[in-house]
């Protein structure tokens, strides 16, 4: 019994940032990188299933990313996952969710997991593409934005709730193996223990190239091309300046003015 969890290393921008010379991305000097917030929840969900099964389940973490992404992978391993797979090739530098899904599909074919989790979306770009594109490529059952899961390892079906607009949830059963994208709040993710962090450094990680997976660069082209990236026009907000006391006084004025409503 095996659960494969795909995780992403996301990038946040420093308070000030500059564009790359080609104008198609932010200069990488201004990135701060971290494990995608959603992936804390999907890793936790896999760990809960593993623990409920008395450890009779293996949790494998897969990440598509360069050496830098090793940090995010180890963060997931530090929470108790068993081993990792990291796939990288320069041809993946412009990869989008569709291209990443093509790589993950090969990883799934190799690993043959009983269940695949992804995050509902990535916190940096919010594409919400990768997991369900992966399912489409595999031809597997799939549902996005899962906020509750009842699944016993190896079972033929799982009961899930998917979270809809306005806090309404739909209860459905789904055939397994399946690809589920996991929503924030499905559980309370654990923090890695110091021991876990230490152990994560020793855990086995397969480093694979596209070639190892039998993929060519032509098979991982993105479904869209970035023409340009730019800072949106700002300046709609009128800035209230001064000391905190002055700012608060002005805010209080605005509130009182409008509260007479």
């Amino acid at each position, binding site marked *: 019994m095996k659960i494969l969890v795909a995780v992403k290393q996301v990038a946040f921008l420093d308070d000030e940032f500059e564009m790359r010379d080609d104008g198609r991305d932010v200069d990488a000097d201004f990135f701060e990188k971290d494990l995608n917030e959603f992936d804390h929840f999907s890793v936790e969900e896999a760990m809960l299933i593993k623990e409920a099964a008395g450890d009779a389940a293996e949790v494998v973490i897969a990440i598509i990313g360069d050496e830098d992404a090793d940090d995010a992978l180890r963060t997931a391993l530090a929470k108790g996952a068993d081993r990792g797979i990291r796939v990288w090739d320069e041809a993946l530098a412009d990869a989008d969710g569709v291209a990443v899904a093509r790589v993950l599909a090969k990883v799934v074919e190799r690993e043959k997991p009983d269940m695949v989790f992804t995050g509902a979306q990535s916190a940096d770009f919010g594409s919400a593409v990768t997991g369900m594109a992966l399912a489409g490529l595999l031809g597997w059952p799939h549902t996005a934005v899962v906020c509750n899961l009842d699944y016993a390892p190896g079972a033929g079906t799982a009961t899930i709730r998917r979270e809809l607009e306005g806090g309404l949830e739909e209860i459905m059963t*789904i055939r397994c193996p399946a690809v589920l994208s996991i929503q924030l709040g499905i559980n309370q993710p654990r923090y890695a223990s110091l021991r876990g962090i230490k152990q994560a450094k020793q855990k086995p990680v397969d480093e694979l190239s596209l070639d190892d997976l039998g993929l060519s660069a032509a098979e991982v082209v993105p*479904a*869209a091309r970035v023409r340009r990236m730019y800072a949106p026009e700002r300046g709609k907000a*009128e800035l*209230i300046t001064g000391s905190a006391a002055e700012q608060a006084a002005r805010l209080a004025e605005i509130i009182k003015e*409008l509260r007479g409503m």
Partner: protein
Amino acid sequence: MAELLVIAAQRQGELRPSTLEAIAAANGIRQPGDTLAVAIVAADPQSLVGALSVDGVDEVIAVKATDDFQPDLTEAVILALAAARKPAVIAAAHGVDAWSFVPAAAVKLGCGLATDVQALRREDGELVATRAGYAEKVLVDLDFPGKSTVLLTIRTNVFEPAAGTGAPRVTEMAAPAADVATTHQGWKPPADAGGIDIPGSEFILSIGRGVGDESNVEQFLELAEEMGATLGCSRPIADNGWLPKARQVGQSGQLAASCRLYVAMGVSGSVQHQWGMKHVETIVAVNTDPEASIFSIARYGIVGDMFEIAEELKGHF
């Protein structure tokens, strides 16, 4: 001459209003001679034709199946329509339903794909879609070289919903065969609000992850009361159990429907939070990050620490 196709969404037999925004987005990139068709999958699709008969819609494709959401079925519908009609663009609202079926359909079609699109135009005849990136701090223009079909999901509350009364042709389409792997079992409505009324409040003070710790929440409850505001929050605060879900503003929480003054402290301004408050006439944002996207929708901005501002606010009321 090309065909534009919109995939409508319904829930429990009711049209999702965001469908009309997807129709408007598709209409906006229409070229002379193009036609626009809307496909609707439902138990009684004919009952939704009226709601879809808005300006610009030339044809409604009625697929009689079930009101249950079945991503596998919707994908089969898209694949069948794409094969038969070779649409240049297929658009759907970027709602939770589309998250399940759009990417899967896109890889099966091998088409272009952009999600959460907030602007569309043609540059030298080529379709260009704009979406946000890096937590809404940048915009990205995307194009789709070599793709004869492009699938798009359209951000809600950006495009003015299509209105008017058209007289589209109605085409009935038999539900295609699909290997449906999901079975609807029921609904779980949101928990009782316990007297907290975000939709009815005219003045909301809202706190986000900037509050840092559960022990810091109480002082904002007190401040809200002092100011005569209802305390709202962003999702992580509710997910952590620091405040009840009924206080959560946003797509999966409450719509601040009656609000006229929204003071957001330590909220970054994610698209899902904006969903619940972007429309508010006067938004004041307090955030330590001058680039936080909340400032792009706020009327007033304070670049500063929410605790200092909160402390200084006390006593003004």
